[in-house]
């Protein structure tokens, strides 16, 4: 009986692993940059499935929204503005005498560290302190309460990235040179409130189930990128989107403002603002 229930899962895991390996190979060694980028986006989506299999639904949500969605949009927008150089896949591995031993050493070190990690982990500590955190979802509790400084520093990294990107100035080639179809901007206008609503839902859901600030910020960022790609914010994207986002985020954030420690968390509005702002100054 046990074999019957375990079988499909093992087959699924095996197929997933093979697909992931093939897509990773395509992304890094395949022919054609566009194909590589698309392979990488599919890789991110399948990684989300792998996270589900590893019982990490929070990471699955974040991977699907950030890893595949936002990164994919960034990669595609960069690809559209690149000069196509003579890229014919990977060349013969250069300096293999350097990176093969170095890579094996790092991999071995990782394996040793993984092997020597204390086995019970911190799960019990988190569970015992969960009641004091004000939320039911342990991952949200760790992110916003127990390890809040980590999250704050991570927002610092986001801010640093935004400062670096702003300091570059405008790029020579605009993102959307012409919009052939009038349906695209209309679609962007139509869908953006849905993105806002979805991100609020994810934020609220994060207190008791998989979801939370990261995923909400990513979905909001994806909505901004959609607006940008659909040409809704053509002309002066950074300024327009900035105003729109401040308005939306203010609208969303205002009702939740008083009281609750989760909603009042500083990292939250900054995170939701940081990603769209960053993505639009990339354009």
């Amino acid at each position, binding site marked *: 009986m046990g074999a019957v229930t375990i079988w499909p899962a093992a087959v699924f895991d095996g197929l997933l692993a093979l697909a992931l390996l093939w897509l990773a190979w395509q992304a890094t060694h395949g022919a054609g940059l566009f194909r590589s*980028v698309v392979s990488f986006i599919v890789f991110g989506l399948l990684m989300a499935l792998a996270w589900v299999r590893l019982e990490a639904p929070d990471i699955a949500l974040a991977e699907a929204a950030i890893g595949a969605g936002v*990164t994919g949009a960034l990669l595609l927008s*960069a*690809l559209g503005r690149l000069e196509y150089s003579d890229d014919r896949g*990977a060349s013969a591995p*250069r300096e293999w005498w350097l990176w093969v031993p170095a890579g094996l050493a790092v991999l071995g070190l*990782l394996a040793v560290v*993984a092997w020597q990690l204390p086995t019970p982990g911190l799960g019990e500590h988190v569970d015992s302190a969960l009641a004091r955190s004000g939320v039911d979802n*342990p991952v949200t509790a760790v992110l916003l309460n127990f390890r809040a400084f980590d999250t704050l520093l991570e927002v610092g990294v986001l801010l640093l990235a935004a400062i670096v990107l702003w300091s570059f100035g405008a790029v020579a*080639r605009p993102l959307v040179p012409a919009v052939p179809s009038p349906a695209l901007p209309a679609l962007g206008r139509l869908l953006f409130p849905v993105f806002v609503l979805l991100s609020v839902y994810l934020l609220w859901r994060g207190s008791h189930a998989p979801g939370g600030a990261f995923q909400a910020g990513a979905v909001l960022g994806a909505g901004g990128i959609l607006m940008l790609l659909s040409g809704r914010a053509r002309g002066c994207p950074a300024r327009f989107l900035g105003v729109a986002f401040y308005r939306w985020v203010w609208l969303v954030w205002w009702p939740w403002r008083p009281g609750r420690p989760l909603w009042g968390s500083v990292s939250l509005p900054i995170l939701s603002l940081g990603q769209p702002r960053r993505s639009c100054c990339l354009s």
Partner: protein
Amino acid sequence: MMYMVLAGALFGIGLSGLFSARHPLRKVLSLNVLSASVFLLLVAVARQSEPLDAVPHAIVLTGIVVTVSTTAVALALLVRLPIRGRQDAAGRPKERP
């Protein structure tokens, strides 16, 4: 266990791509694959414990956001990078036909 092996294999693919790729965009992709493999290892190790350990999950979430920040900065640098021999006299990249 299988996911740990998968993480190791992805690590190898990412590392070889990072060093052997010719185009910088491919290097960025390789770096992303590399970080995904490390996250996978972390969560696969965390899964072994009972009850489920939430701290590695939070660390991986943080790591994903840091990876996206790195990718965004790298891509912004890359877009401003003219390919040699394809720029006009002012040093600006030529428009693609």
